[in-house]
């Protein structure tokens, strides 16, 4: 049942906790089944299940805390013009799996979820918009911001370790 794995992976990333993630997934399946008549055939089943999971998470204790600690993002702001081919982008592309996972873990939940849905679940913007119940423009700006934040985190991480390496050498 690979959908189960995908939902669990997402739940585990959101909640940071094994047993909470398991409960979330179980509840999602229960709700999905109970509300199956509200699912419109022909629409995206996967997005529907992810949406249930996410809404369940948001009303959980961890979810409520996460919502409180998330900075308000200026979503109506136009995305800033960026030059991509810079050390930050390369830092992300060449980061180790561990470094990437650590950075993703630290990313505020609004950005973490949108990146997971887009890059890991490979959902289309339209599907992500359905899961998050936001307009597509918001999906795009959150993605852009989230990735930028991730790049900055990884670049500064790398800068730190490079600096550390240098001072070690001097000793």
């Amino acid at each position, binding site marked *: *049942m*690979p959908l189960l*794995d995908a939902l669990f992976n997402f739940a585990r990333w959101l909640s940071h906790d094994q047993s909470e993630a398991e409960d979330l997934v179980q509840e999602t399946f229960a709700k999905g089944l109970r509300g199956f008549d509200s699912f419109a055939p022909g629409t995206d089943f996967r997005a529907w299940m992810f949406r249930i999971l996410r809404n369940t998470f948001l009303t959980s204790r961890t979810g409520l805390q996460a919502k409180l600690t998330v900075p308000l993002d200026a979503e109506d702001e136009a995305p800033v013009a960026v030059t991509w081919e810079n050390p930050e982008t390369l830092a992300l592309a060449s980061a180790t799996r561990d470094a990437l996972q650590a950075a993703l873990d630290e990313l505020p939940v609004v950005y973490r979820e949108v990146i997971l849905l887009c890059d890991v679940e490979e959902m289309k913007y339209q599907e992500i918009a359905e899961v998050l119940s936001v307009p597509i423009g918001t999906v*795009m700006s959150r993605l852009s911001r989230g990735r930028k934040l991730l790049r900055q985190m990884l670049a500064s991480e790398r800068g730190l370790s490079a600096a550390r390496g240098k001072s070690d050498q001097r000793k």
Partner: protein
Amino acid sequence: MSCMEWQNRIEAYVDAELPPHEMESFRAHAATCTECASSALALMEAKGALRRAGRRYVASSELRTRVLAATARQTRTTTKESTDAGMLPRKSNVLAWPRWAMAAAALLLFAAGLFFFANRYQRPSSLAEFADLHVATLASANPVEVVSTDRHTVKPWFQGRIPFTFDLPDLQGSPFTLTGGRVAYFHQEPGAHLIFAYQRHFISAFIFRDTPQLAISQSTFSDRGTSFNLQTWTQDGLRYVLVSDLNAATLQQLANLLQHRQ
């Protein structure tokens, strides 16, 4: 469109979310603009790295069981409630929907599952397992247990070792020679593993009873990832799998000999 405007669209390009004509024109633009091309490349690599890093957790078998059990329980309750509600005029409809819904849910889960599965694994694992068996056997100091070029020695050797029998073709006049055989196991099922030689190449022929675990189709059988060629077919309730570094045409030649043995 200027370079600056493209820079703002690169993310959508990498996510394959630009309208088709813009996808095309970006490609044309990137062919002449190294800056945009390298940005797109770096972002694609970053996306790939994120995809690999993000697939981090797998549901435990315990959770799987829990979800399945809960799903089954709930289906029973729903069916019972609908019956108890006693909506006589539409009784058949009311009774029918949970089953219909279950079927739809199962189908959709399956479809969604396949979608993920196809994305994640380009080929079935059984295919890779046969290639592994082939490589591991050739790497061994004693690849075969019965060393013989005579089909009348090799075939009887398998008596009592595997739960079925098979026929071997007469290879005289063909470019192939039999070098021997051994017992192989696949999904706890014993089978015959024959090794044929073609010039300096070796070909593994696996013969197993055809079980659902072995339900693999030829269409998935071009293993470009490891550059092995594979051929498979079923005959008389047996599944044949040929693995070799030889080209597909030569492999097909041996397959024909095995299929039309005397």
